[in-house]
């Protein structure tokens, strides 16, 4: 049985556009013997039970998510295809901790560099999806990925990278103190705050330093991150993230520049290991096994990774995925679809909810119905909606008569509320002099008649 690893397609001369897919490729390349696995650039996360790529297929079994894949491989091979087995205790703990660190600190950097930055996204990242997905899908996937990336990085306050959101109003909540209570003083901070590009650059450098610094220290002079001999799952993960930071050629190169300038050893390690594991640059022709226009000579990628042609299922398959994506983006329907996914995966039946949550849902629905009912009632009362068999009677006067009994009651109240004002009203209505001017233009000049009542 050949295991199939389904991943996002190649980009930037790397085997995949997603760091977790790169990590999974590196892991399988090192752990699983050649010929026992195949690499397929499906670029369709709906295949996987966890709705994310990479996904591993063994016959009818689908495993989604790179951590689950590592566990499954260990299980499937009875502990043979494991990379972390030989690690001593402290290194094992480091492997767990730094894996979490690489994921949590590396993801925002990749998000910012590839997706949030408008220039990089429009000129480089979005066009790549056109090459790795079939026709209608690139309309939906990149915006969805970008929206998720923006949400993940929202707390960093770096939306100035995203030019789409700048509508003239100043971004950035520099302080939670209301403007009226703030002291006006020109400090270095306030000067810098006036220039969002500089602020963004400083923040980005800090973020990059926080990520690369501990990794460089951990590696030290060792061959791999944890030891001289063992290539661990942490190396796979770090390689995935670092390659995607270093290799892409983007218009806004701050991330790769920072890395090359301040952490040259880490760069050299990434490039060397990438060459060793992925076997040189890969491109779309390698992944889809299409023949090149200028000949069949590959840049060296073809031989090292066991690519296979993806089966997209033709028009119907692509159409189904397209409709599924659209359904996910509709507010209520998408939520329902996501809920079903979680429940299926958690192995919970829909009936095992508790009494209290039932009661809560009943109150929620009840208040919703009551709210809608009140709104409809008001609409009826106002005469926006009228029942067909009972056409709205002509209203003869405006004012309070139009509000039925309640209006009548109110009008009595209003009319008797203040005797003085009532008098004033009377004066307005009857006593005030009204002048009418009639102008007649006739043959014998202009005749003006004034009537004062």
């Amino acid at each position, binding site marked *: 049985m050949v295991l199939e690893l389904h991943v996002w397609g190649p980009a930037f001369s790397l085997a995949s556009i997603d760091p977790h897919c790169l990590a999974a490729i590196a892991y399988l390349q090192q752990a699983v013997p050649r010929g026992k696995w195949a690499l397929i650039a499906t670029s369709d*996360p709906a295949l996987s039970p*966890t*709705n*994310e790529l990479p996904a591993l297929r063994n016959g009818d079994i689908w495993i989604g*998510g790179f*951590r*689950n894949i590592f566990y499954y491989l260990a299980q499937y091979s009875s502990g043979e295809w494991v990379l972390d087995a030989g690690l001593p205790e*402290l290194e*094992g*703990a*480091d492997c*767990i*901790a*730094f894996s*979490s*660190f690489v*994921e*949590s*600190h590396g*993801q925002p950097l990749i998000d910012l560099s590839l997706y949030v930055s408008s220039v990089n996204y429009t000129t480089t990242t979005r066009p790549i999806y056109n090459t790795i997905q079939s026709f209608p899908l690139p309309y939906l996937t990149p915006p969805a990925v970008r929206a998720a990336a923006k949400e*993940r990085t929202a707390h960093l306050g770096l939306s100035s990278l995203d030019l789409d959101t700048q509508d003239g109003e100043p971004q950035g909540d520099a302080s*939670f*103190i209301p403007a009226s209570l703030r002291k006006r003083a020109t400090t270095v901070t306030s000067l810098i705050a006036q220039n969002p590009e500089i602020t963004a650059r400083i923040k980005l450098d800090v973020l990059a330093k*926080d990520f690369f*610094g*501990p990794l460089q*220290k*951990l590696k030290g002079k060792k061959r791999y991150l944890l030891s001289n001999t063992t290539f661990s799952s942490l190396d796979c993960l770090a390689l995935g993230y670092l390659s995607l930071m270093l290799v892409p050629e983007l218009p806004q190169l701050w991330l790769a520049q920072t890395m090359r300038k301040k952490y040259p050893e880490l760069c050299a390690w990434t490039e060397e290991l990438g060459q060793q594991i992925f076997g040189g640059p890969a491109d779309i022709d390698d992944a889809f096994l299409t023949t090149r226009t200028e000949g069949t000579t590959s840049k060296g990628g073809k031989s090292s990774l066991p690519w296979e042609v993806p089966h997209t299922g033709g028009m119907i398959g692509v159409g189904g995925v397209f409709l599924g994506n659209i359904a996910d983006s509709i507010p209520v329907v998408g939520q329902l679809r*996501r809920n079903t*996914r*979680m429940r299926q*995966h*958690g192995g919970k039946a829909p009936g*095992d*909810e*508790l009494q*209290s*949550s039932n*009661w*809560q849902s009943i*109150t*929620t629905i009840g*208040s919703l119905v009551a709210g809608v009912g009140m709104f409809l009632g008001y609409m009826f009362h*106002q005469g*926006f909606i009228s029942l067909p068999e009972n056409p709205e009677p002509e209203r*003869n*006067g*405006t*004012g*309070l*008569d139009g*509000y039925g009994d309640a*209006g009548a009651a*109110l009008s009595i109240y*209003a009319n008797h*509320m203040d005797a003085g004002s009532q008098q004033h*009203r009377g004066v*307005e*209505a*009857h006593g005030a002099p009204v002048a009418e001017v009639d102008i007649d233009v006739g043959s014998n000049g202009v005749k003006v008649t004034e009537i004062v009542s």
Partner: protein
Amino acid sequence: MPSNFSHRDAAPKPESKFSKQTAQIQNFFSIPAPIKTLFDFVPVLVYPPNELPQRAPKPSRIPTLYVFSREEDIAAGRPSFNPGCLKWQAFLNIAGVKHRLAASSNHASPSGQLPFLLPAADTSNTNLLPVRSNQLVKYAEDHGGYVEESTSMRYEAYRSLLDHRIRNAWLYTLYLEPSNFSAVAYPLYVASASSNPLVRASLSHQLRSAAEAELLKNSSIIDIDDLYSEADKAFEALSILLGDDQWFFGCDKPTLFDASIFAYTHLLLDEKMGWKEQKLCRTLKRRENLVKHRKRLVVAYFGG
């Protein structure tokens, strides 16, 4: 009705259906005439501002830390039931910064998040701005507290275990595990906030969907087995890191890192919390040195 309306009746304008509809829509958004008439009668009078109510907090001589807590725990200085608050409460206790506690909610905080610290009033500076949690380390340093942090390269990595792996499992087990939500989170966060069933229903829905949104930020699906197994591995790594030492990173006094891990271990091991689904608690109980570490902190800084 007064006769000033009569001229409109005398000459009714021929209305097309469209103009009638637009008139109706304008009518819908304008203030209804009776209310407008009522308002016309009310004179505009500006009263002087009210005195602050009797129970309003007065500037105090000791700084006040606002945390999620029960009223009966405040006086005794017992740990808060919110890990974010407990972390800073423990940190201030460890640093030796004198403070008193106040039970509060997110609505009281200027940043929308608890905890925050209101500095003491008798200091020379008139600047009585609340101190947010991310400025508390500096505040403790400025006010003579004991602040020392490890500079180990492992610090950030193991902190990410707490801030992501363990926090995610905590969010799931507290808010999304139905039995725990109704037994633990509901009385602490929902029932204490309001007695109205509609408000309670909406609050609990908000809490649960916020937790769900937070978990879905980093993955496309909430993979429960993965959450628990990652938390298990995180506790294992922390347990190995602590080893036989008293405090993390071989320090001779506890630090902010010890306070952050205590915030989770204490709440998971505290029997008063009344966990129903104890999966996360069980994984923690297996690491004996972490259990002892929590015990040491309770004895030394929370009076047993």
